[in-house]
């Protein structure tokens, strides 16, 4: 798995052609809301429990 594959999957999932360019200033004061963090943690837990099957 390469960083380029992660990037391509991320773009596909978000329906974007290019990665957005965000300034450092934009994200410096950015606080992740509790409900977004809870959703992230729930997905992390689920991904450790449920495997999808390849070939």
């Amino acid at each position: 798995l390469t960083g380029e594959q992660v990037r391509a999957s991320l773009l596909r999932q978000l329906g974007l052609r290019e990665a957005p360019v965000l300034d450092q200033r934009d994200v410096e004061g950015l606080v992740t809301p509790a409900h977004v963090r809870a959703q992230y943690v729930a997905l992390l837990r689920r991904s450790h429990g449920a495997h999808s099957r390849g070939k």
Partner: protein
Amino acid sequence: RFSQRVREVAGRLLAAEAALRRLERLSPHGARARVTVEWLRIHEDSSNRTYLVDSRLVSLQGSGWKAFDVTEAVNFWRQLGRSGQPLLLQVSVQRAHLGPRASGAHTLLRFASQPGGHGEPQLELHTLDLGAYGAQGDCDPEAPAAEGARCCRQETYVDLRGMRWAENWVLEPPGFLAYECVGACQQPPETPTFRRPFPGPRQCVASETTSLPLIVGVKEGGRPRPQVVSLPNMRVEKCSCAWDGAPVPRRLGP
């Protein structure tokens, strides 16, 4: 044919030449029949249910071996082993296009006879002991994989912080353990009586994967907002030795 541990299976059906000559007269050129294999499971309360195993169109003018993959059915049946129930595979034949002779399609397609048999479909089980032919789990982190080493799952860290495109875009995680499948798989011996239904060698591949959740910054109305995204099949959970396209045995019910 069984070995002690049923692990991999190849099913074969053969259309007899005698039937093919008859079909050429009866059927228009290009006529096909659908051959369906189902697993018939009889429950403890005597009720039964069929599960589709494989189904495909077979040319009535063609000839040769047709391989039906019954691995899943055999694996599920093995898991029910204590019940002592035999493996019941139901083979049905229907004309691809319904017409006046559709119900008689089973008479147009015949299966090869085994010695002493009566033209029943044949089931051949080719088994491998995965203790010798499978993957070995996780690689030894202390010993780098040498050439020809056995298939295993190797740790690989993907560092998102070090990637320019991810800068200020991917907020969480800073990186993750992705794993990769490395090493070689032992190839089963080929016998004159058994032609593998799967082309090519067995390869060390990812057989189970998990998704990778991320928090990314998306711009909305000119201002960034954190959003959760889940990327499928990003982390390898298990490596297995498999032929291309062949299912890997697993513990799951239908």
